C-alpha cells in the first residue's frame, strides 16, 4: 500500500490545485521570521524598480515635447523617491547576484568553478558596468 504524499508548500503544492486537502499559508506568515520578511522585501523590490523605470520612460517621452517644454524632474519628492528606490535596487542587486553562484554552473577543464568565484565575477561585472554607465551619463551631459 502506498500512501498519497502530503502536499508540500515548499514545492508550491497544496494551494488549491487538489480536490482534497487544501493547505493555505497562515495570514501574516511573512512577519513571523526575519528570514521570511527579508524574502518578501526581496520579491517586493520589483514594484519600486518598475515604477522608476516607468518614470525613465516618461523622461524619454518628454524629450519629444521639444526644447521649450522640456524640464527634467528635479523636485525633492522625486529625489526622496529615488533614494528609496536605490535602497531597493541595491538589495535586489546584492541578493540576486549572490544567487548567481548557486544557479550558474560553469565548468573549466572538466571541473566546476566554485560558486563563490562566480558570484565574485558577477559583483565585479556590476562594478565595471556601473562605472562605465556612470561615466557615459556624466560625460555626455557636459
Amino acid at each position, binding site marked *: 500500500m502506498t500512501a498519497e504524499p502530503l502536499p508540500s508548500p515548499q514545492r508550491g503544492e497544496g494551494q488549491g490545485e487538489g480536490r482534497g486537502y487544501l493547505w493555505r499559508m497562515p495570514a501574516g506568515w511573512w512577519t513571523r521570521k526575519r528570514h521570511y520578511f527579508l524574502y518578501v522585501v526581496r520579491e517586493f523590490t520589483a514594484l519600486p524598480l518598475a515604477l522608476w523605470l516607468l518614470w525613465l520612460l516618461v523622461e524619454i517621452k518628454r*524629450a519629444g515635447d521639444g526644447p521649450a517644454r522640456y524640464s527634467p524632474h528635479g523636485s525633492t519628492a522625486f529625489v526622496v523617491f529615488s533614494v528609496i528606490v536605490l535602497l531597493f535596487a541595491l538589495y535586489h542587486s546584492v541578493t540576486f547576484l549572490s544567487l548567481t553562484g548557486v544557479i550558474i554552473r560553469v565548468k573549466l577543464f572538466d571541473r566546476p568553478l566554485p560558486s563563490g568565484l562566480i558570484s565574485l565575477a558577477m559583483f565585479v561585472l556590476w562594478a565595471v*558596468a556601473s562605472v562605465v*554607465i556612470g561615466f557615459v551619463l556624466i560625460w555626455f551631459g557636459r
Partner: protein
Amino acid sequence: MSTGARQRPALMHLYWWFLFSQGGVIAALLIPVHVLIQGILGPLGVVRVVDRHYDTWVQVLGNPIVKLYLLVLIAVPFFHFAHRLRYLLVDFGMPVARTVPAQAVFYGGAVVVTLLTIWVLLTTAPLSLP
C-alpha cells in the same frame, strides 16, 4: 510510477523563467547606477547628467545603440518583475495568481511595456548615427 497522464515539458515555464532570470540580471547590473545618477545626483546638481538638458538628452537618445540599450534596460526587467510579483501574490495566499488569466495580465503587462518602450524610443528622437 505511471500515472497514465502524458508528460509534457513545461516549455512556457522555461520561457518565462529564462526571461525572469535575464531580467533579474539586467536589473541588478544596470538599474542602481541609473537611479543614483539620474534620480539623485543629477537632480541635486552634484554632477551634470545627460538628461538634465534637452540638447544633450535628445542627442544621446538619437543614437541607435542607446535606443537598443534603453529597450533592454527598461523592457527586459519587466518580465522579471511580472514573475516576482505574480508569485508574491501566490505566497500571500492568492492562488488565483497561478491561473492563465493572471499570467496573461502579468506577462501581458510586460509585453505591453516592451511595445510601449519600442514606440517611445522610435518616436521620441530621430535616429542619428554618431
